[in-house]
């Protein structure tokens, strides 16, 4: 069975929500103002999208907010590959956010090459989306342009729609209401105050997922008036947002007499920075537990003061750590041709183990690679550095490539 219609009667958003609870595979052939599009839905999740010149996620965001798109739904299709992975809720929420904030990506004006008739026309100036909604003329113009330019001659979607609209719109409309209520009930989206989904650790684990990684942050300073000589650890539930900022939520447990430590822990956590959690290659906000240890105000730096790399100016006097054993990491995205070289700094302890490792210059988009490098170099063994013949903890730098 192939359904077809136009989003003025049934929005794409509602259509996707209906399919959200359907285990089958669907192909939505689309035709909108920005060109032909395609949405693939498998097991209730949107797994691929194309719209005009827009790829994947951007296409999906724009498609569900477009006013007038012709669509045709085919069921039980083969889905060869997956480029995105959204639940209906996620897609709609994110698309709505981008729409509201005006950051939806739109394709560049299409270079028209369909024939002499068409190429002589110029595309009308594109109204801004909220103006478009207000102005029926603009919308109609856009729609008309879209139909004229992009309707496939062999499948006249617009005629099919006129015949079948009323027939299927009614049961589908009922299904939309039921599906929406069901989805809202299941996810609790509409009852919770947050309008964006916060993932949990258990949601991650796929090949393109990454856990949040602490970039900076250390023990908190014990409250000055604490009379106890016991330095507790406060386990906090924290939210790490897309940018890696930390929002302390609440201590996981309350213990008598530790409220001063709890607020000190919350203060310290606010200064922490993380590499955000990644889900399907996209940074997502996450809630995790994080323990905060304490040091006394007067305590010196917890690690022995290491010799900095800059110290080694005279190679005759001292010796840098030399790598004894260590394997290059495997690429975290084996399918990708990217094989970046990552510069990192490691602190080699007197036993030759890596006590600390950090990325010299963290780059956006390389988090997975950087994490793989850090995981790898932490297993490396070195001959420790020497200063005046004595073995000392030493910082050194490494450039790591991928296998």
């Amino acid at each position, binding site marked *: 069975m192939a359904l077809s219609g136009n989003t003025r009667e049934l929005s794409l958003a509602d259509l996707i929500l209906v399919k959200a609870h359907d285990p089958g595979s669907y192909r939505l052939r689309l035709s909108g103002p920005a060109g032909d599009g395609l949405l693939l839905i498998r097991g209730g999740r949107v797994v691929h999208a194309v719209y005009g010149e827009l790829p994947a996620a951007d296409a999906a965001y724009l498609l569900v907010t477009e006013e007038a798109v012709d669509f045709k739904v085919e069921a039980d299709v083969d889905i060869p590959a997956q480029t995105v992975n959204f639940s209906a809720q996620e897609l709609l929420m994110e698309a709505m956010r981008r729409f509201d904030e005006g950051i939806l990506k739109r394709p560049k004006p299409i270079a028209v090459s369909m024939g002499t008739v068409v190429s002589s026309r110029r595309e009308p100036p594109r109204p801004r989306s909220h103006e478009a909604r207000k102005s029926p003329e603009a919308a109609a113009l856009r729609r008309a342009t879209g139909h004229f330019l992009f309707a496939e001659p062999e499948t006249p979607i617009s005629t099919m729609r006129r015949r079948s609209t009323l027939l299927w719109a009614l049961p589908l409309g009922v299904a939309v209401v039921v599906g929406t209520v069901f989805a809202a009930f299941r996810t609790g989206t509409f009852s919770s105050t947050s309008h964006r989904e916060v993932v*949990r*650790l*258990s949601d991650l684990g796929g090949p393109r997922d990454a*856990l*949040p*990684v*602490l970039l900076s*942050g*250390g*023990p908190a300073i014990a409250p000055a008036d604490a*009379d*106890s*000589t*016991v*330095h*507790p*650890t406060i*386990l906090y*539930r924290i939210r790490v947002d897309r940018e890696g900022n930390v929002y302390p939520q609440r201590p*996981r*447990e309350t*213990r*008598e*007499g530790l409220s001063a430590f709890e607020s000190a822990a919350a203060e310290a956590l606010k200064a922490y920075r993380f590499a955000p959690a990644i889900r399907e290659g996209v940074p997502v906000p996450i*809630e*995790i*537990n*994080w*323990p905060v*240890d*304490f*040091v*006394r105000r007067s*305590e*010196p*730096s*917890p*690690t022995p003061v290491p010799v900095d790399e800059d110290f080694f100016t005279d190679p005759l006097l001292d010796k840098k750590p030399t790598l004894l054993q260590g394997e290059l990491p495997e690429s975290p995205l084996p399918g990708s041709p990217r094989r970046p070289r990552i510069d990192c700094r490691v602190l080699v*302890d007197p*036993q030759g183990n*890596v*006590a*600390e*490792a950090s990325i010299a210059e963290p780059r956006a988009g390389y988090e997975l690679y950087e994490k793989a490098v*850090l*995981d790898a170099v*932490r297993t490396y063994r070195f001959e420790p550095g020497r200063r005046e013949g004595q073995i000392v903890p030493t910082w050194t730098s490494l450039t790591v490539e991928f296998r």
Partner: protein
Amino acid sequence: MRPVAAAVILSAILSPVEARERISVRGPADVLDRFAGLADALARWHPDLEVAWTPYEQGVSFAPLFDGSADLLISTRAIEPWEQTLAARLSLEIHEHIAALDALSVVVHPDNRIEDLSLEQIETLFSGKIRGWYGFGGSDHPVRLLAPPPSSGEYQALRRITPGSGFRLPPSVEIVPASAAVLLAVAADPRAVGLVSMSLDRSRVRTMPLRAATPAAPIVPSVDAVEAGAYPWSRALRLYSRGNADESLQRFVACLLSSEGQKEVAKAGFVAVTADRPFRRTLPARERSRDASITRVSFAPGLDLLDRQGRDILTGLAARVAEVWITGHADREEDRSGDRGLSERRARAVEEFLEPLGVAVAGTEGVGAESGDLRGADVWWISRR
């Protein structure tokens, strides 16, 4: 698991005692059993560290940590206020780290028909106020409580269901210190109920879903539910070390808290604190070494009079020591009322004996049965080096 742990302990006992090369780890037997894999991994990562894992059969005691005979304590309970006071009196810096999360599982026989229980009902159950399962709508069987020993993490968890409620086990309750024994007994007896860690194999018993309050949804302990804080009765597995931790112990703890160590912790059935925690948690620095020592004096049941042996011990002590701190104890029977009166009188009896001998008593405290059924008084002192 147990033969491995036993072998480790045996080798630790037989090997010659070295001054600071060896790390002595103590903890509840159940937890150390689960940590056999972690112990192997740590031995692989740091072959130069010699680690002795020594279990407690009953609960957790902080005494070995305070007197320096243990370098690291793995504990299923948080340090109690009276132990914090003692640490402060002895000027011992104690550092706490959270190594993992765990959940207390309420286990019953598979035939037990009760669907779920609330935390409040658990408290009522273990305080002995419910004699038969019909009290919760179950069978006509009487309830057989398999209670945890005082000073165990399970006991502390029971007392913390309603903080300050003065929870007490019924006087003649059956105390089963080992979780393995609890699981065996519960699997064989439809009347029995016990508390075990979620890390243990519970396939032959039924784990009771718990509700935080009566209208809340019942939840079965699982890794996800504990991580997200949905399961109402979770606890932390803590590490305690002293401020004067040497470099090898610091390395050991850092390794245990690292992402690799946490993987092993998760394999052992616990919930990693955060799934990925690189070698980032900087540990506190070494502090000047200061060792407290403990001398224990016993009393006859119900009495606060020093016997001859006790007087001899204290006389010998007075010749060596200038200042002490005294903690009095009582066992559960003696301290049935919970007023700590007998333990306080015992501490004062020791004080009255020591003061005329020229020993300055910095303070006394009676802690009732909280230290785990000791019938005596501890005299704590700082060795002068």
